[in-house]
């Protein structure tokens, strides 16, 4: 049996050639505008999150619960020497699940460091602009933007991270912790 004849080794050779080929072509800055997304899953629901709204992706980090009445606050976690509150994105978006989330993203915001936890990180998506369907801008829903991403596999609602950060900031300032669903 030849080594190259086996599919795994063939795939490895293809990966090697593709990786080497990427460094052999000339750099071009004339590429069209592309948008980066993280494809995630909350429970069984697929979602997308703009990569520009994410500061870091972390897996398997330890979340330390806090004695709080806020149901969306899972606890706090340490990242690169900083303590960040970790909110459960699943409960924030109304997805009920009992599993402990494995993935968190640190939101890129200047107001306060916040991390959102979710179940599964499925991958990185780079799509052109026409793959994004924009919704009405006057919506007041903080849960998500009405934008929808036409991913190759699914239609993925795009998580409205700024609205969630605004709601968390407002709730921290007001000391309120109403349920987003109640709101």
């Amino acid at each position, binding site marked *: 049996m030849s080594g190259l004849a086996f*599919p*795994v080794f063939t*795939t*490895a050779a293809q*990966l090697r050639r*593709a*990786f080497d080929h*990427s*460094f052999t072509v000339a*750099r071009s*800055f004339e590429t069209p505008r592309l948008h*980066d997304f*993280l494809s995630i899953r909350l429970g069984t629901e697929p979602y997308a999150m703009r*990569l*520009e709204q*994410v*500061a*870091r*992706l*972390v*897996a398997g980090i330890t979340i330390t619960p806090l004695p709080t009445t806020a149901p969306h606050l899972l606890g706090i976690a340490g990242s690169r020497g900083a303590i960040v509150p970790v909110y459960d994105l699943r409960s924030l978006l109304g997805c009920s699940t009992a599993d402990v989330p494995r993935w968190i993203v640190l939101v*890129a915001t200047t107001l306060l460091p916040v991390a959102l936890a979710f179940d599964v990180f499925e*991958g*990185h998506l780079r799509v052109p602009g026409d793959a994004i369907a924009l919704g009405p801008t006057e919506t007041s829903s903080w849960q998500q933007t009405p934008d929808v991403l036409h991913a190759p596999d699914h239609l993925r609602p795009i998580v409205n991270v700024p609205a969630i950060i605004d709601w968390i900031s407002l709730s921290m300032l007001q000391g309120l912790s109403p349920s987003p669903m109640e709101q």
Partner: protein
Amino acid sequence: MGRHWTFGHKIAASAVVIVALTVAISALAVFSLRNVAAMNDRVIAVDAQILADAERFRAEVERRGGAARGFLLTREDRFVEGMNAARQSCLSILARLTRNVTDSSGRQIVEALERSEAVHQREMDRVIRLRRSSATIAEVTKAYDEHVSPERDAVDAAIRALVARQVQLLQNARDASREAASAAITLMILMSVAAAAFVGLVAFVLARALSRQIGTAVGLIQSSSAELQAGATQQSTAATQQTTAISEITTTITELLVTSRQIAESARRVAAIAEQTVTSANSGEGTVGKAHEAILGIRRQVDTIVNHMLELGKTSQQIGGVLEIVSELAEQTNILAINATIEAAGAGDAGRRFAVVADEIRKLADRVSGSAKEIRGLIDDVRSAVNTTVMATEMGSKTVDAGSRHFADVAAGFKQIAGLVSTTTEASREIELSTKQQTSAVEQVNVAIASVAQATRETEASSSQTLQTASQLALLSNDLQRLVKPRAA
């Protein structure tokens, strides 16, 4: 006529009656003829004789008179002698007449004739004596005329009276004979008419009886011939069907004969094959022993295969563990690449080159992750195949064990087969012998069937002949029926 008389009896009785009538008529005719003949005979024998004697007497009287006249003329004695001879003839005639004439009137005439003749003779004798004397011729003539001639006339008168009487008697006898003949003819005609009427009556009665009985018999013959014809037709049809059936049976028996020969040949082959089978079974027993040893070797090889497969399963598990590490590394690499991309984006244009590298690293990590998933799938398939193979191999091992046990049974079976095949050989030989006997019997049956077929063909021909005969009999009965009852035909 009896009702139960046969035709022969009836015809014989009728013939007897007719013969009796014929005999009676013939007897009557004979009697009548004899009566008439007797009457004629009597007329001829008596009356005609008397008449002839009378005429003869007349002639003798004439001859005597002539002789007397000759003597008278010549005086020669020879005339006297002639006269005496005539006289003797006359006397004998008179004696015969006296005997023949029996009635009184006739006797009187004969007696008168006898007296006148005697007187005539006496007178003639006296004249002759006169002539002998010295008397003259004249005296003699005178005496003759005076004495002889009258007596001669008296004799002639007596003769005429006698002749007249006899003529009358002849006339009477002829009339009586005619009357008797006429009566006999009338009686015969009457009897013939009666016989004819009787014969006609008998013929009518016989015809009616014969027509009735023969018609009945012919009717029975017609019905019997029709039944015989139908029976012959049915028999002919049955014979034809039987011929066809026997032909089919012959064909079947021929096929059976061929089949029996084939069975005998097959039995012989079976016996030969059974002998070969015994040899093969004996050799198979040794082969089974060798195969048992080979099975044990296979068992050992299977154990080795199971061990190797278990090792392969363990190796697959180790590969899975390594693959977990590779997957985690790919995931971490992906996370790092994404974070590097984020950092590069934050660095602006300065981080764009780094973003390209990070992007390539992320792509590589994605592909590695995908490949790791594929490898995991392959490893899962391998592990599943290994597990299946191990299970199959273990089952194979168990099967080999069972096969090993079965081989012992097979060896015993081969011995039993050898014994049974020997029995089969004997049975095949018996079958061959029985089949040959059966073939011989079938050949005999075939010959017998051929004889039966020949007999059936002859029966068919006989039936056809019977049918033809029945048809002819029917035609004959129709002809008879037409003969007996024309209107019925």
